[in-house]
């Protein structure tokens, strides 16, 4: 393997993981506020389809991304409404939406299958792109990729550095306490779920307008579930979540190289590998024995907890003001 190949592969992973990053950060924000939006797989499909359809008909990428975000927010609003207002099971609603949005994308996406449409244009950042190695990986991409990287740090900054971010942590951990401090818990949850959904939608459009350009049936099937698992893997932390997305992207690259390296093994086995690894990763982050082991001393417990990440204390629960 020559260095150029390695550099290009890293650049590819960064680019191809961009939609996953949007989805993971979006879901992380929603879950941090206490609402699980399980519909991701369907939302991504539907927003990818709408994004492409709008781009195809209007030739306007801004409109396309906007439409995709609206779709994501709309689906999320159903989840938010049903859990916050109607106090329904978030999982049931999310699951139904997963299937429904998938079918909607097929039904309405029919006229757009395999049509050539506009794509997010490549945009090398002048100057920076010429830096050896780093330039090629980070600055020879397009706006959407830059945004995905910016989003990671913006989300981190928002959650851990700003006052609204502190509130966000609070409403997910202990809504009653946040309420006592003047936070309108349910309104905030609604907003974050919508923003999260919009980001997921943006991720969907990133597929159909860049990473997997165009639209076809079940264009992004399965990726939403991966995103949900990565949120857990990332311990509800945007930077670790993004890392999870990049690791997944890397795994996919490995599986296409592995075909040449392990000629005895059917290719589909490698395609399955990320899912098996997902289980193993979840097993690792939620393992009781490891938990006990590291809880022995306060120091190791602190390290372990920061490594593992704990779910927001009030995740998937309903907040009712007395």
């Amino acid at each position: 393997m020559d260095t150029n190949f390695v550099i290009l592969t890293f650049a590819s992973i960064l680019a191809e993981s961009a939609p996953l990053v949007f989805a993971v950060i979006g879901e992380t924000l929603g879950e941090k506020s206490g609402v699980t939006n399980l519909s991701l797989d369907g939302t991504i499909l539907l927003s990818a389809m709408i994004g492409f359809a709008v781009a195809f008909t209007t030739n306007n990428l801004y409109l396309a991304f906007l439409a995709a975000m609206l779709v994501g927010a709309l689906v999320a609003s159903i989840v938010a409404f049903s859990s916050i207002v109607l106090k329904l099971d978030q999982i049931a609603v999310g699951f139904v939406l997963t299937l429904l949005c998938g079918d909607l994308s097929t039904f309405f996406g029919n006229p757009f299958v395999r049509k050539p449409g506009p794509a997010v244009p490549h945009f090398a950042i002048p100057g920076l792109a010429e830096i050896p190695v780093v330039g090629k990986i980070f600055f020879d991409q397009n706006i959407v990729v830059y945004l995905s990287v910016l989003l990671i740090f913006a989300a981190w900054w928002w959650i851990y550095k700003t006052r609204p971010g502190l509130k966000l942590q609070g409403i997910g951990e202990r809504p009653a306490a946040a309420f006592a401090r003047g936070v309108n818990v349910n309104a905030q949850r609604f907003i974050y779920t919508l923003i999260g959904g919009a980001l997921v939608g943006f991720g969907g459009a990133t597929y159909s307008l860049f990473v997997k350009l165009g639209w076809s049936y079940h264009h992004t099937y399965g990726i939403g579930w991966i995103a949900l698992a990565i949120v857990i893997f990332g311990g509800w932390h945007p930077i670790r979540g993004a890392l999870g997305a990049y690791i997944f992207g890397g795994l996919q690259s490995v599986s296409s190289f592995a075909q040449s390296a392990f000629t005895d093994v059917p290719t589909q086995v490698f395609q399955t590998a990320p899912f098996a690894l997902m289980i193993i990763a979840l097993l690792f982050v939620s393992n009781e024995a490891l938990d006990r082991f590291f809880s022995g001393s306060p120091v190791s417990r602190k390290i372990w907890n920061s490594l593992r990440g704990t779910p927001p204390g009030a995740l998937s629960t309903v907040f009712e003001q007395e």
Partner: protein
Amino acid sequence: MRLELKHIHKHFGAVHANDDISIAVESGTIHGLLGENGAGKSTLMKILSGFIHRDAGEILLDGRAVAFKNPAEAIRAGVGMLHQDPLDFPPLTVLDNFLFGREDGFMQNRAGALADLQRFSRQFGFDLDPDALVSSLTVGERQQLEIMRLLSLGAKILIFDEPTTGISLPQKIKLFETLRLLAKQGMTIIFVTHKLQDAEDLCGKVTVLRLGKMTGQVTHPFTADQLVRLMFGQSLETRARASVALGEPILELRDICVADYRLRVPEINLQVRAGQVIGLAGIEGSGQRLLLRACAGLDQPVAGDIWISGARMNRQPYRDFLERGVAYLPAGRLEEGLVPGLNLTEHFILARRSREFFIDWRAAQDAAQSRIGEYSIRGVPASRVEALSGGNQQRALLALLQPNLNLILLEHPTRGLDIESTMWVWSQLLARRQRGAAIVFASADLDEIFEYSDRILVFSGGRVARALNAQETSVQQLGELIGGKGL
């Protein structure tokens, strides 16, 4: 700030939780609010602090009428409340908690908050690490943090809802010092409790509630007897106890060590004989629950041996404990005892020892009906348990116990119950004791411990004192042990 509550009313369905309550508190004083369980103390304070809305009445601050939509408004107006279980964010740091709710700009003003925190800490002599997680603090320390937070937000009236329940004696002394200091600085303090001693020590004036009504107001100096009469209508007498001949040893603990992730209590030795009642005293969370669960087979002790009726039970499954006539009554009735969504009949079937595979619903319903009568549960066989009142839930739990038990372990058996229910629960337990059961119970209520225990095991600061003979122990002694003195 001068506070006046005038003719406050609050209904919860049929319950008239606050019935025409009027209180006036001058600034710079500590006002006590006393009452038995369910008297309406918390309700009144929640109304004052904006958590719930009154049905009728007036709240005046310095003569100005106010109506708070939510707690944040109350704080802005200068009213802050400290809850019994501090309403904070355990997974966040001390500084984050302190910051939360301060409205000064978009970014987190950490430097400013830190300076504030340190200023208050110096003022009261508190010592909190700003970067520590709140989950690693004691309840006392969390109260300190809340006090500083509310003061930093400009609170002039501070409400303390039973602040002494979960803290150690030194912490209590520290808290009282702080409260006096606050009063001296002109704060208005309302101190909710049902501990007579605390009220005597601290409050210049005390209002007593009973069943939602105000039964009286007394000013310093007052006597405990006065208060008791106002709280219960008459002064309580301890009834003479029927003596029971002690039988075989039922439970033996040899060098047991129980632990969870934050607490470790080593070297517990105890022998309990049939007919004996052991009270576990101590601040809540000092290991009583861990010990009860270990004895019930629900948790494994870290070290030592548990013997039940002559059999070593280490690492035996929970169901073997059940087989041996061990029963455990948890404190969280709907969380770890009853199954919300199932009705009484279904509970009785599930608790049955005989495990017939097919259910005869008609017979089960009849059996449930008679059990409901026997335990005077207010409900029908088809009542879902979550629809029962707390006292009736406790009755239902008792009704689920097998008839012939050797060892009954109870956690706060009468918490939240009224006097009548409390008496009834104990009459049931004492009857079982007559039949040869041994009883081990934990309670936060020292009176209950004194009244019913033969021996008392005191938990404090990660240690357990040698079992005391209840007859030979004074309240003073016990209080000191709980507070960590002489252990």
